[in-house]
């Protein structure tokens, strides 16, 4: 018996007379093969072979094995083409089931047993019939069905709890929230099956389950909404999940034995695929158990794309890609285990004229772009580069002199020289100290904190200026002991008070791992459990404190004792352990924080170097290779894994040299690409085929506005002319509305996301109309007044100066015309009086005001 799996066929089947089916089918097949439908030459895409995946391949090749009445297998049929491409054909092939009705195949390739026996299953793509079309291609797989009529005892953790997860019953918004929903509580995402069992079976006097008449169990009646259920209908009465629950209740609600196998890992097939725009891919998920067995978990797993603009997945594991080239990861979760399917979706354009590769970054990015068929934009011009790199490294606009000098420099390595000059400047250290001070929570909560925040800021700045190796920098913070006055990084411990926030900050800031979730429950997207969380927190268990030498300050010291922490859930005492590492046995006199940094800074640490290079990549490229930059996890894969690895190894090999890293990043051609898209890469958001513009930071923008208007910055208690980038702590945000409204972070979080880069109405109002800014533009000593009062130079020269100062470039003729037009504008004549020209100073104020409000000014592009 032949069964065609496409949905359209089923439709036709319903309406076509039996005799016509085969004919209709053949026509349909041609139409449903996309490359043919698109009119591509069939020979270029001729199908060479088919491959059937049916779970774990055995030594003798793949075999389809079904054991027990509940077993099922998701088949995946992959077509291999002459061009080397592979495509999912699971829903387009014709399956021929073995003789004797051993099994049933659903339209999506899901196999369930009917009867014991052995046989062969065939999948085929028939020839298109007449003409020189493709040949029929088929593949077979041996089949073995055992115990098809045997219902094995149900196991609660492995078979029942996942149903609640899949149906959303135990999600955070429903019964999974702490305290449950309307009196019925389940553990979040089924991480604690024993508790769930308790709640279901024993709570509420056992009214939820009714083994004598399973269908009348409240659990089932609520689930199919035959009695009113706040969460609506979650299951169909004829679904496999319903039948499973029903059988479990009928069996008397067995929990299973403590010796029953547990899931140790899950695997998704395929792991990776290069797929066409708009293509579909069925996934299969295999759960591996502690006894070495495996089960198909495709129907019970949860799926979620990491970028919802690129793909969607339905509950059966069918991935539908959208029309967006790039990479997308599909996170698969089952019983607290995760796996990822990665699809690369090429655009398919010719990539020939690549700009020259200057270092390994370029080779790896270009390699990716070639793979994707996405030609990069061209290299940006000199003024754009100078402005971009000066803002990114030194946190300021280039001066007019710098721009002029750079324009006249004709040497080949002039861009590298600028990078080096900026890295050597104290402005580099100031700008990055500003970044790190916020992340290291250099916050002034009380007036007495000022001494410490100033010292800590200064320490960060000096460390960066001296190019202290990053691992040393981190060790000096995390393992800091003593008095803030003598050892400023101790200030970190003043802000980051208890061991939970210390471990969470450490993980997020230095390892790019967000552990917060695992404090109260197993991390929903990650392998981290509460055990991992509390083991990690044990590193901070021996932090002692006593009053410091200054008011509001503390001394931090190592409290002698064996480092340990208690798992809040199971009350187990835990020794310190790095993430994914064995626990350490440390002698009481050893400060565990040093052991922590030893683990972090080891060259094979999977997080430490990666996290930093990714953070810096984001600083310069406006999107992390992993994004958000501090959320590195298996289920949020990097857009270019090779590049991330290469950067991390380079960073480790350079002995954690931050300036060397920046040199490599900014020295790459990729960093120097234009932000202007070509006809192919407008939608590119993750492959770095062009530069992604970013809004200039609050501090840099504030300084830049002062530079252009010619006003001096002034902050309470600091010398006049201190720039916003140099501010030592967060306390100035309150008094300078501009910094506040443009999102300068308050140092209350170790997350870069605290710096708000959103646009807002208040920002627009402020920039367009703030009294403070208007006064700066119109100041007697400001640039507008001085330009208007300068009679030696003509207006064109002055406009050129303004453009150089604001945009580091010359105005084009049209811009010049607009500006001059405004400077010579006639005001509407008042009654009886002759027409007057706009006052010069006012005209210059207008021009400066307009330049400050352009996107070209507000963005680093």
């Amino acid at each position, binding site marked *: 018996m032949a069964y065609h799996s496409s949905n359209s066929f089923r439709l036709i089947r319903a309406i076509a007379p039996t005799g016509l089916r085969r004919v209709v089918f053949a026509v349909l097949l041609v139409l449903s093969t996309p490359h043919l439908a698109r009119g591509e030459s069939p020979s270029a895409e001729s199908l060479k072979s088919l491959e059937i995946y049916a779970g774990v391949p055995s030594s003798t090749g793949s075999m389809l094995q079904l054991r027990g009445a509940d077993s099922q297998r998701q088949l995946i049929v992959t077509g291999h083409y002459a061009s080397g491409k592979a495509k999912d054909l699971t829903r387009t092939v014709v399956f021929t089931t073995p003789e004797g009705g051993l099994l049933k195949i659903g339209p999506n390739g899901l196999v369930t047993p009917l009867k014991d026996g052995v046989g062969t299953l065939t999948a085929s793509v028939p020839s298109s019939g007449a003409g020189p079309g493709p040949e029929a291609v088929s593949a077979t797989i041996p089949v073995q069905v055992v115990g098809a009529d045997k219902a094995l005892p149900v196991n609660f953790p492995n078979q029942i709890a996942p149903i609640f997860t899949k149906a959303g019953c135990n999600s955070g918004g429903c019964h999974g929230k702490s305290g449950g929903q309307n009196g019925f509580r389940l553990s979040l995402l089924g991480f604690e099956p024993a508790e769930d069992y308790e709640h279901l079976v024993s709570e509420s006097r056992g009214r939820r389950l009714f083994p004598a008449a399973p269908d009348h169990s409240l659990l089932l009646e609520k689930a199919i909404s035959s009695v009113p259920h706040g969460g609506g209908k979650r299951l169909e009465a004829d679904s496999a999940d319903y039948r499973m629950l029903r059988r479990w209740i009928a069996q008397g609600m067995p929990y299973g034995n403590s010796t029953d196998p547990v899931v140790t890992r899950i695997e998704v097939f395929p792991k990776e695929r290069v797929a066409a725009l708009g293509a579909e891919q069925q996934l299969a998920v295999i759960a591996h158990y502690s006894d070495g067995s495996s089960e198909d978990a495709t129907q019970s797993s949860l799926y979620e794309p990491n970028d919802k603009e690129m793909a969607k997945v339905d509950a059966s594991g069918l991935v539908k890609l959208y029309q967006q080239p790039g990479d997308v990861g599909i996170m698969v979760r089952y019983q607290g285990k995760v796996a990822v399917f990665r699809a690369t979706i090429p655009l398919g354009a010719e990539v020939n004229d690549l700009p020259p590769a200057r270092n390994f970054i370029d080779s790896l990015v270009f390699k990716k772009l070639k793979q994707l068929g996405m030609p990069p934009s061209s290299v940006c011009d000199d003024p754009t580069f100078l402005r971009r790199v000066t803002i990114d490294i030194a946190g300021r606009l280039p001066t007019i002199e710098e721009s002029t000098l750079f324009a006249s420099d004709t040497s080949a390595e002039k861009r590298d020289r600028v990078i080096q000059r900026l890295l050597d400047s104290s402005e580099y250290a100031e700008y990055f100290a500003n970044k790190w001070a916020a992340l290291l929570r250099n916050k002034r909560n009380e007036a007495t904190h000022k001494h410490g925040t100033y010292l800590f800021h200064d320490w960060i700045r000096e460390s960066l200026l001296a190019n202290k190796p990053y691992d040393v920098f981190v060790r000096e913070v995390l393992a800091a002991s003593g008095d803030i006055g003598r050892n400023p990084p101790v200030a970190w411990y003043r802000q980051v008070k208890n061991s939970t926030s210390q471990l969470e900050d450490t993980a997020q800031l230095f390892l790019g791992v967000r552990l917060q979730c695992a404090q109260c429950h197993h991390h929903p997207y990650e392998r981290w459990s509460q055990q991992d969380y509390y083991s990690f927190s044990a590193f901070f268990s021996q932090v002692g404190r006593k009053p410091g030498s200054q008011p509001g300050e503390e001394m931090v010291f190592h409290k002698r004792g064996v480092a340990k922490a208690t798992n809040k859930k199971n009350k187990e005492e835990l020794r310190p352990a790095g993430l994914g590492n064995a626990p350490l046995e440390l002698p009481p006199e050893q400060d565990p924080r040093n052991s922590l940094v030893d683990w972090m800074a080891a060259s094979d640490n999977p997080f430490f170097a990666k996290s930093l290079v990714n953070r810096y990549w984001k600083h310069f490229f406006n999107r992390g290779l992993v994004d958000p930059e501090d959320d590195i996890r298996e289920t949020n894969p990097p857009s270019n894994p090779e590049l991330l690895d290469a950067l991390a190894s380079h960073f480790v090999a350079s002995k954690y040299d931050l300036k060397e890293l920046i040199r490599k990043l900014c020295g790459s051609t990729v960093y120097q690409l234009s*932000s202007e898209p070509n006809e192919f890469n407008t*939608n590119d958001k993750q492959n770095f085929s062009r530069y992604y513009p970013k809004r200039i930071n609050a501090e840099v923008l504030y300084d830049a506005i002062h530079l252009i208007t010619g006003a001096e910055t002034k902050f309470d208690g600091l010398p006049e002319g201190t720039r916003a980038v140099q501010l030592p702590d967060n306390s100035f945000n309150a008094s300078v509305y501009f910094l506040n409204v443009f999102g300068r972070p308050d140092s209350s979080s170790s997350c870069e996301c605290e710096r708000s880069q959103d646009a*807002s109405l208040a920002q627009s109002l*402020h920039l367009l109309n*703030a009294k403070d800014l208007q006064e700066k533009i119109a100041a007697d000593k400001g640039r507008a007044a001085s330009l208007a009062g300068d009679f030696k130079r003509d207006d064109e020269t002055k406009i050129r100066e303004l453009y150089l100062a604001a945009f580091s470039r010359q105005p084009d003729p049209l811009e010049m015309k607009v500006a001059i037009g405004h400077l010579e504008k006639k005001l509407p004549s008042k009654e009886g009086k002759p027409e007057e020209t706009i006052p010069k100073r006012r005209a210059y104020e207008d021009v400066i005001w*307009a330049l400050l409000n352009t*996107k070209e000014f507000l963005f680093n592009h």
Partner: protein
Amino acid sequence: MNPDHSPHRMREARGEGLFCGKRTLHSFAQLASEILRTELVFFQGLTSKSGRTILNLNQHLQKARASQPEISPKLIGVGPLSPLMLTIHGNSSRFCDGLSRRNFLRIGALGLGGLTLPQLLRAESISGQRQRHKSVIMIFLPGGPSHQDMVDLKMDAPSEIRGEFKPISTSVPGVQICEHLPKIARLMDKMTVIRSMVGAEDNHYAFQCLSGRHQKNAPQGGWPCLGSVLSKLGGSVDRSVPPFVGLSPAMGHVPWSDAGTPGFLGVGHAPFKPNGAGMGDLTLNGSSLDRLSDRKQLLASFDRFRRDVDGSGLMEGLDVFNEQAFGMLTSSKLLEALDIGREDPRVREMYGKGDPKNRDDGGPKLMEQFLMARRLVEAGTRCVTLAFSRWDHHGDNFGALRQDLPLFDQGLSALVTDLHERGLDKDVSVVVWGEFGRTPKINKDGGRDHWPRVSCALLAGGGMRHGQVIGATDRLGGEAVERPVQFGEVFATLYHNLGIDVSKVTLPDLSGRPQFLVDGWQPMKELVG
């Protein structure tokens, strides 16, 4: 394919109720043609209660489509409508938050549903009037008002507890409140008294009354207050009026003058404070309207930077906000809303004259705040916070209340009356409370001290079922003995009134964790069930 049209975007975030309400056929025809022109697809879950709206719109869409066959926008799905607000449904509600932070930010900041903000504004401006938006006025009584001297008088208690005031009957039979609140008493059928507020944090601050949360154990960045949540979820109703306005005046004790903090939502969602730094930006500075329009032209000529270089939508957002800002600077709608001089003198008289002097380190008694609040929600603000006087009477409790209660009585009753007279009582919820209650026992100075174990709240409007008393305290007014009400339950109720489903909507905090708007509390069945 324009990403705005992709069905997955539509599925993730459904903008609802943008165009419902009464509308002429003419505007529907316009709307339909605009939809065709801009190829918008946004009708997920759009209908009026009667089902007519969508029908009309469909007819006009078909007509318009027939005349412009080259464009064919799709009408996706029609479903029942909960009014006004953006509801974020999860990816088949697995996590009740299927959105990545990035997507969420874009949607939150720039649009409702599948619409980007500019499209939304364009669509709104051609569709003429909008359905009335829902809003909240939050009135904070700094210092902890004395529940047993206002709405829960204990006449059977011994004299050291009883207090000096007598109860009076109200318009609701059987409900009595303090003799110094006669106007509120007459309106009791339009209000609800909660006598059993519990769970106060015992902290002299407005935070809990603005956010429904304790400050302790907050996620990084802190909890956002209700107004910031509304700003994040809904954005501006009117392009020239901020969604969240804080009127709370400056006070000596700073945590009382808190008008609401945005917490992890970021400064973009902080309240617009007409007393604060942002206010100065509302009136033209160093410029005239003519000059502003000149400058705007100049800016348009200079600002030729290609917007498509930015794929994040930020540049587009910036343009939209700039346009709004110009709108605010030229339309002065907000300023007018704040200018109570424009109000009918009769109405002003109803609100009465207050006392601009701060009571010690607390607030002044500004009756204008009540009126301004009404004018603001009318103009398009989603949340107004205000604070009135100071209620921390450790000494001479009764003397101080004799001074303040009549003013409070007049201000609040005027607001409630006014909302009803203008037909706003279904759309605007009012909540009045303080950070805790006061001790049953009167101390040696004739005052009452802090009592976080129980306090009271007054509610009005919002389409709630009024004329009732919820909860009760014991004979001494010291413990809630009936129906203890948590702050979170009141917030869940307010969100419900705003059309927000607290069991579904989440906002990501700084660690990316989806956070619910209230901690598992449900809307109060007594009020909205």
